[in-house]
């Protein structure tokens, strides 16, 4: 999966999990997530992580994620990209 496809898929995960609807279409790699999208509370963060695990078929350990991972759509996509490379 190339980065553009990964980005698109991560955006879909956010759209479906947070019910962002068409707001998700406007998200770019620079879009701030944590602290900016009100739907993204701690419960939603867990739902996003679980959805990413299911969608991409890897497991995320507790110590792999940090607030920085969820800073922007770009940083979240980088995280998934790195996991897919391992």
């Amino acid at each position: 999966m190339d980065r553009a496809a990964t980005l698109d898929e991560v955006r879909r995960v956010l759209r479906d999990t947070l019910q962002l609807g068409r707001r998700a279409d406007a998200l770019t790699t620079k879009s701030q997530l944590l602290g900016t999208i009100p739907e993204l509370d701690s419960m939603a963060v867990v739902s996003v992580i679980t959805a990413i695990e299911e969608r991409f078929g890897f497991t995320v350990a507790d110590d792999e994620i940090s607030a920085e991972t969820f800073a922007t759509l770009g940083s979240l996509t980088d995280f998934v990209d790195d996991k897919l490379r391992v």
Partner: protein
Amino acid sequence: MTSSASEAHELELRPFFHAGVAGRVFSLLVAPPRGVPRRGGVLFVPPFAEEMNKSRRQVMLQARALATLGYGVLLVDLYGTGDSEGEFAAGRLDAWRNDLVAGCRWLGREGFEPVVAWGLRWGALLATDVLRTLGLRRLLLWQPVADGRQYMDQFFRLRTAASMMRGGARETAQDLRRQLEAGATIEVAGYELHPELVRANDNLRLDAPPGGCVVDWLEVVRDADTQVSVGSQRMIASWRQTGVDVRPAAVVGQQFWATVETTVAPALIEHTSQSLSGHA
């Protein structure tokens, strides 16, 4: 609600308290309208903690749909949850199990037999347990959780995520398990978890019901070309080898137990109703 006002009027909603093992347990019977032939009962076993709050609307819509078909559906708030007495920290698996068994027997006494055990997510583990205890023959599973310990670890993640968002020291599931082993009650997403409850949950596994049982195994997926999960397929295959009649289906919809806003999955209700009315 999709049901019309007149239908809602005809259905009987009977709330009552059961004298449970630990205290009073709130129960709601959703009974068929007068004149509809009775098919049997359905005992609902709720999912864990916040997943139940998110699922209430979907569950109520399904209960109404089944009542319209002639089922008496019993919705029980586990002790320490919902409108039942007690705090969540006082919730114990054995008491919950006993209260559910009592609810099932009550359905029988009210003339709603045979009873279908219906479990959502974590509730699938207890529903299977109740089925075995009472020798029921039919199980309805919605997005079943297969492993209690793994589920607890996922639940602990809520606290890990909260600590991550505060930007302080991060707590992992292992950190929380160490506190539990030392006898501490820990709080996750507003729920006080007693070490005994976690220990009992850890030991829950989705084991095959006795041969000959009929199981509807339903999962909600995002698009029409997705099947039930790989893990579920493996388990379904092994159940079939022991003579269990498993009927799996993946229906498209929102994962209502996890979504931020309240959502419902109408296709799941439709499939469930068709299956229990014998037209699936």
